[in-house]
């Protein structure tokens, strides 16, 4: 600080004053950003403090396992990894079917730390990857919003994003999922796109492609980028905002981005062959046509140009029609019209529930309810419209992008609750803009109305007070000289010109601003009260976010807790069961369970599973669903044909854990019935109602899932009262003939059964006729028939 002060003394002009103030603002915003990073990181640590440093839920366990493999075996083995622990007997090629961004990121962090001799375990690194990246994400938000509306809005948006509950829900410590790094990649890609758009620099365009590559590596949601950016380009062209900057922002992204995306094994040729990417190529053609037209326009006289246009349009239309017809024919010839199921369900929200029960069965693929909007983005929902309005004052290329982003993400979040995550950054950016503008206006009018300030000094005083009271306000101005200096360095004359057009010289600006302020100034009381209300609103948001982070979203779901009179009670049944499987069964034993528990079983119990959360093979899942819905003998045959030794079911009836297998059972029936028609959903429903009490259908009471869940349940309390379904079960006393209980956890939440060995053949006792179910059933059971002809 000493050096600038002496310079102030030497040259006491407004310019030096501004430099000092800008430097101060820069340092201040740097520290604010640092604090935002700390906030984003630390608000996500509730799960570690309240529970433990552990990987959460289902998918993160798979990512964790892949990361372990990566750190143990290295990158080349990782690409070639064929996992035989899952989808038995099919297996899964992990290297080619996984988005590697997250695992490679965590693997790199781990490698870096270990080469510095900091011996953190892979698990620790995985647990804390998500909080670290949410700090990055909030910094990226700052950069993006700063490009759009200045540093004040940027800081506000960054604060909002650092603690938006929707993002917290996917990035608490331990939530080691693709979205954790993908949201950062998404925002950063958008930032670089806007940056390129504002500067027209090819350097940023290249960076943008690399950021896009990272996004493609990380998450399937990259298709959102590759559709949103073309839409924005199209919007700019249509509204007559075409510029060479737009061309530089877009064309390299498509070419480089597509090439890079094709390098990721899981995407590969999909990057050019599926319809999701089609829009980007179409716009790519359009932007070239437009660029060409502008070029021709520049070299031809207006009259000649008109002639040329009519000529080209008439020929071009004919060619276009032909090309489009061919394209439509090609696309229509594929059954799903070239779209993947998940993308289709985005366009047509009813698609999944109609055709793909597996997608529909996942709760995060359901459309959200209104309360979930309030829960996940809270007051931002009210600030977004204001932000959109602020974006139109004035509408720039960058702010039009934000408007487009929020509009599309609102739609997508309405389709699938999971995509609320994409909405959250957009909502934060627009709300940040809205809040910042509102503060700007309110504090501005307060300053203006303050008594005892002369008009001449007003301008200066106004500016200084804006420095101290409202740092963000200052940032808008602080950023300008900084930017121009950078531009000077990068020599973007065009950008400079644009700036000159947009922003008049400093003095004139100050003058006009003062004039403007005088006109727009609100009464002192009104602005003070509104300021207060805004602060209350912000405080409410903070309180809500902290509550959501602490209470709603920090449970790791593999450890459950309940508060009772005698303190905290811990339900650690899942790990108990997995640990038992890990230590007390043979390494090569196969465990069948519903697909939800597949990832956890392979990761925690290290045993081979039949199906897992990857859900890539519908038939295989349907086979397990059919087995669970079949009577004991048929189920035994199916499982035996799959070489299964243990069957694992999750049962919450004793302690009241609602997301157990009985509650998921109808999906098993539906998915099983979708492939094996002898399983019919109405057989399991009494008058359209799903019930397990004495009114339940005999098919329901005899199916394997019912039996495995309630085996000897009646002996616990004598009545067999199911605490989840809040009823006594229908069939209380029964015996298992083909399965035996080998392990049940402390609270009965996980029950593991072993398939009994096939009975010895007794001469003369072979039944001639097979049971009806197996004779009418699928090829699976006939496969068994071949294997065990004496059954």
């Amino acid at each position, binding site marked *: 600080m000493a050096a600038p002060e002496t310079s102030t003394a030497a040259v006491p002009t407004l310019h030096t004053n501004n430099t000092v103030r800008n430097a101060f603002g820069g340092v201040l915003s740097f520290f604010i950003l640092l604090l935002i990073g700390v906030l984003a990181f630390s608000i996500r640590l509730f799960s570690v403090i309240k529970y*433990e440093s*552990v990987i959460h839920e289902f998918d993160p366990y798979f990512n964790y396992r892949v990361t372990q493999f990566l750190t143990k075996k290295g990158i080349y083995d990782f690409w070639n990894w064929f996992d035989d622990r899952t989808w038995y007997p099919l297996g899964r090629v992990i290297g080619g079917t996984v988005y590697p961004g997250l695992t490679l990121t965590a693997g790199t962090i781990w490698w870096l730390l270990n080469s*510095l*001799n*900091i*011996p953190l375990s892979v698990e620790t690194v995985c647990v804390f990857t998500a909080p670290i990246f949410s700090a990055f994400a909030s910094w990226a938000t700052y950069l993006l919003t700063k490009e759009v509306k200045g540093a004040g809005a940027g800081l506000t948006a960054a604060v909002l994003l650092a603690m938006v509950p929707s993002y917290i829900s996917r990035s608490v410590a331990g939530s080691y999922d693709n979205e954790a790094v993908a949201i950062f990649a998404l925002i950063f890609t958008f930032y670089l796109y806007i940056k390129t758009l504002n500067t027209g620099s090819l350097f940023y365009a290249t960076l943008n492609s690399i950021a896009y590559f990272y996004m493609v590596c990380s998450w399937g949601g990259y298709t959102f980028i590759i559709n949103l950016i073309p839409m924005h380009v199209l919007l700019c062209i249509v509204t007559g905002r075409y510029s060479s900057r737009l061309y530089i922002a877009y064309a390299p992204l498509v070419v480089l981005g597509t090439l890079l995306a094709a390098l990721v094994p899981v995407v590969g040729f999909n990057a050019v062959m599926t319809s999701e990417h089609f829009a980007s190529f179409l716009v790519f053609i359009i932007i070239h046509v437009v660029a060409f037209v502008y070029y021709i326009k520049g070299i031809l006289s207006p009259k000649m140009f008109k002639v040329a246009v009519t000529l080209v349009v008439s020929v071009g239309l004919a060619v276009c029609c032909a090309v489009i017809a061919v394209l439509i024919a090609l696309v229509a010839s594929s059954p799903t019209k070239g779209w993947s199921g998940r993308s289709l369900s985005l366009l047509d929200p009813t698609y999944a529930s109609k055709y793909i029960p597996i997608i529909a069965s996942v709760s995060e693929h359901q459309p959200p309810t209104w309360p979930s909007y309030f829960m996940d983005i809270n007051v931002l929902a009210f600030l977004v419209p204001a932000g959109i309005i602020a974006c139109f004052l004035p509408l720039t290329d960058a702010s039009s992008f934000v408007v487009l982003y929020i509009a599309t993400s609102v739609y997508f979040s309405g389709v699938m609750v999971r995509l609320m995550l994409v909405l959250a950054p957009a909502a934060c950016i627009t709300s940040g803009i809205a809040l910042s503008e509102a503060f700007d206006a309110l504090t501005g009018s307060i300053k203006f109305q303050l008594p005892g300030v002369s008009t001449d000094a007003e301008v200066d005083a106004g500016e200084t007070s804006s420095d101290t009271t409202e740092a963000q306000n200052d940032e808008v101005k602080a950023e300008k000289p900084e930017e121009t200096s950078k531009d000077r*360095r*990068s*020599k973007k004359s065009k950008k400079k010109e644009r700036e000159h057009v947009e922003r008049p010289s400093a003095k004139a600006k100050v003058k006009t601003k003062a004039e403007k302020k005088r006109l727009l100034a609100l009464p002192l009381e009104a602005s003070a009260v509104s300021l207060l209300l805004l602060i209350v609103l912000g405080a409410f948001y903070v309180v809500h976010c902290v509550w959501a982070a602490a209470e709603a979203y920090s449970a790791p779901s*593999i*450890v459950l807790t309940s508060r009772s009179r005698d303190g905290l009670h*811990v339900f*650690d049944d899942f*790990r*108990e069961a*997995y*640990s*038992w499987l*890990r*230590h*007390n069964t043979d390494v090569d034993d196969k465990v069948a369970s519903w697909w939800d528990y597949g990832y956890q079983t392979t990761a*925690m119990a290290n045993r081979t599973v039949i199906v897992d959360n990857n859900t890539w093979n519908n038939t295989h899942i349907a086979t397990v669903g059919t087995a669970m819905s079949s009577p004991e003998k048929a189920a035994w045959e199916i499982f035996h044909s799959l070489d299964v030794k243990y069957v694992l079911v999750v049962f919450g009836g004793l302690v009241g854990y609602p997301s157990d297998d009985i509650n998921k059972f109808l999906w098993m029936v539906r998915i099983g019935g979708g492939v094996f028609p002898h399983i019919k959903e109405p057989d399991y429903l009494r008058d359209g109602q799903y019930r397990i009490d004495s009114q339940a259908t005999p098919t329901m009471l005899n199916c394997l899932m019912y039996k495995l869940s309630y085996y*000897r349940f009646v*002996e*616990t309390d004598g009545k067999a009262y199911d605490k989840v379904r809040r009823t006594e079960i229908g069939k209380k006393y029964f015996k298992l003939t083909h399965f*035996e*209980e*080998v*392990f*049940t*956890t*402390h609270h*009965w939440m996980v029950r593991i059964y072993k398939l009994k060995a096939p009975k010895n053949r007794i001469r003369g006792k072979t039944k001639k006729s097979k049971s009806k179910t197996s004779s009418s059933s699928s090829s699976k059971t006939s496969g068994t028939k071949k294997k065990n002809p004496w059954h």
Partner: protein
Amino acid sequence: MEAPIRAREILGFTLLSLLFFVCRSSPSHNLLISNAERRIDLSSHIVKVYLTLKVENAGSTPTSEILLAFPPTQVDHLATVEALVTKGKRKKTTIVHLDVKPTELPDAPNETKYFTIYLANPLNSGESTTLEVLYLFTHSLEPFPAEIGQSESQLVFYRDSALILSPYHIKQQTTFLKAPSTKVESFTRVEPTNRAGTEMKYGPYEDRPSYSFSPILIHFENNSPFPVVEELVREVEISHWGNLQVTEQYTLVHGGARHKGVFSRVDYQSRPSLNGVSSLRYLLARLPPRVHSVYYRDEIGNISSSHLRTDSRKSELEIEPRYPLFGGWKATFLIGYGLPLQDFLFESSDDRRYLNFTFGCPLLDTVVDKLTVKVVLPEGSKDPSAVVPFPVEQHFETKYSYLDVVGRTVVVMEKKNLVPVHNSHFQVYYTFKPMFMLAEPLMLTTAFFLFFVACVAYLHIDLSIRK
């Protein structure tokens, strides 16, 4: 059930006669044992044998070495042998521990193994002394039936000899066997044999020559769980900033009769006295006092079922495995804790430092098949040497921990077949200059300093090509 026992007995007797035959040929000693009393405690899975010998020197030359003989099958399971002599009369008794060392004799009959007790004062001709010998066997109770269901109780065999195997002539001897309960299925009779409640008495037998052997087999109920730690790795990390970090990795197995068939939680929970009586429900670890930051976890996370009780003299950690361990079931887990350094690190007279810490496993009543103790010395320490009261395998390793450059020296000590008796102290001596403590903070400071210098330099250099 009777048939195999009978067969074994016959086999035993033939062996016995063979032994007699062999023994005659070996040269006799000058010593003889005038009275021997042996008490075998079978109540837990560690078999404790208390042997009281009254040794008499009948020869003409003084001797200070007394041999103990063990059959080869027992030696493999022998965890420790201790011998002591009580001196003085009545109130002024002092206990003197004697050296015991395994010895090889060239003419050992039937691969008999020997241990030599070295007396403090040579035993003169005609004198006699009374020795107390304690030895422990592990893995000596053989479950039979080898597999039991959940509701059955655990029955085990114990094999030994009714007569004490000894290279000396024994004038009079008695053996007492104490079973954990009155449920004794069967036991071999070698008259005179009596049974009273839980105790079986073999003898007194008079004037048995050296190397007498008479195999006996006892089949009884032992429902105590058999906690066996197959492998334990203890890592003790010294930080001169004031902390001693201990990490213990366990592979625990229930060594009793294997569990067979169904495990029913409803039976286990509703009738605990009848079901899974021999299952391992919890373990108790005795940790040093002033222990802090204790954790108990396994490879998939924290295990919530543990309690820590601390007082000024000791800390007790009660841990439950994730699931009750039935026979043959395994579990792995990790216990870690921090200790204040000043309780364990001292300076010796020659300006060296030494760590004084317990060697064995802190879990009570457990057998450790293989124990590895690793003492991680601070970076920069030199000339490490370990002093352990019993023979162990030793070697050195290097470990890299937080920001190490040259690595830390690790003293690795390995020992097989441990029992709680081995929980004695060992010392690791090393030299260390306190300057090394500052290496890492200085390194970090330098790194940050250079980083900021680089930042400042970057901001003041114009790297653009064109102006």
